[in-house]
């Protein structure tokens, strides 16, 4: 069965040194997936918006954010071991099971 992450796309940013990636998923982000992601670190969930925004920060590795109902995550990878951190997140997401 294919993993949750369908594609990882590099995103341009106006700041030097910031590595930003778009993780395109094979499913739409719902509350269950948001709860799963919240285990990664400090979690914020802004449900006042019609399309709620969430953000979870792992102080060492990355910041993951997205909008409920979208099929992608926007990820800021921190400077220390960026490739390993990006891969850690992909593995974490691919372990997610629906239903």
């Amino acid at each position: 069965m294919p993993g949750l992450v369908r594609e990882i796309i590099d995103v341009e940013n106006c700041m030097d040194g910031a590595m930003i990636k778009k993780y395109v998923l094979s499913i739409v982000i719902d509350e269950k997936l948001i709860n799963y992601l919240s285990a990664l670190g400090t979690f914020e969930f802004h449900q006042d918006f019609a399309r709620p925004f969430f953000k979870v920060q792992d102080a060492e590795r990355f910041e993951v954010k997205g909008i409920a109902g979208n099929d992608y995550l926007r990820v800021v990878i921190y400077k220390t071991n960026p490739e390993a951190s990006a891969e850690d997140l992909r593995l974490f997401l691919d372990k997610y099971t629906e239903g």
Partner: protein
Amino acid sequence: MFCKNATEALNLAIRGFVLKFHEKHDRKPRLVSTMAEHNSVLRPLFHLLKENLIDLKLAPLTTQSTIAYDALLLLLANCDMAVVTAASNVTGDITDFELVGNACRDAGVFLLADASQSAGSVEIPFAAYGVSAVAFTGHKYLLGPAGVGGLVFCGEPPFLPIMQGGTGVHSQSIHQPQQIPLLYEAGTHNSIGIAGLNAALKYRAGAEFSAIRDKGVNFALKLARRLAADRKFKVLGNPQAPQRAPAVSFVATGWNCEDMGHVLWENGGIVCRTGLHCAPLIHKAAGLPEGSVRVSFSVYTTEPEYERLVELLGKF
């Protein structure tokens, strides 16, 4: 003369002035600018500084991110060329060109105005204020297409051309024609862009446009005052200014600007710019290394669109 954008016009005026100055003097020209400038001014200036062709001083900003005029006037008293934005692309604040222009005229300083943000949105009588040259772009509030801009100047321009090439006339000569604008306009023009800008200017002169011409500026004035009254927001620049270019930049407590932009787009279809807006020093001076959220209004912005923005901002 026509250029492909304001950046090219600014480069032509700044570098051309410096080259001409070196031809006539045995010292480097002293240039003055401000920390409110866009990279289209900062980068040419710092490149010339790196090349050791100029001395450069930048006027600081106030705690409100407006130009510190006292400091700027002191610097203008002892310089050869000043390059100053007519309206900040970050704050929308309009520079007091009556003050700056008179100071430059009194001191014999060549004053170049960057009118990228003001042309088409705010009327500034540059010639009356003694401004020597004005760089503009066609694709912003003048409503022209991208890829056309220019440099307007009074009298004999004191700068050398920075490019040579074909002009379509005087082709027997291997030297650049000395007539203006041919001296500065080498190569094929963006004729389609120039025609588009001409059409936009004709449209702007008509009755249909005069009914909407102030809409963008009025929305910006209203939003800046509204956000300044809400302690959750910090507005860059002077939110109480009686006039402004139609852009407002701000930050909100507890939010980073990129996330705000993301939420505004996803929840309201509102496109805004987040980050440094190519103006790093104004953000550095404001203590905002990650930048701000900038909302820009146009003459076509509608009241429901403005209300949608205000409603969403109320949720941050």
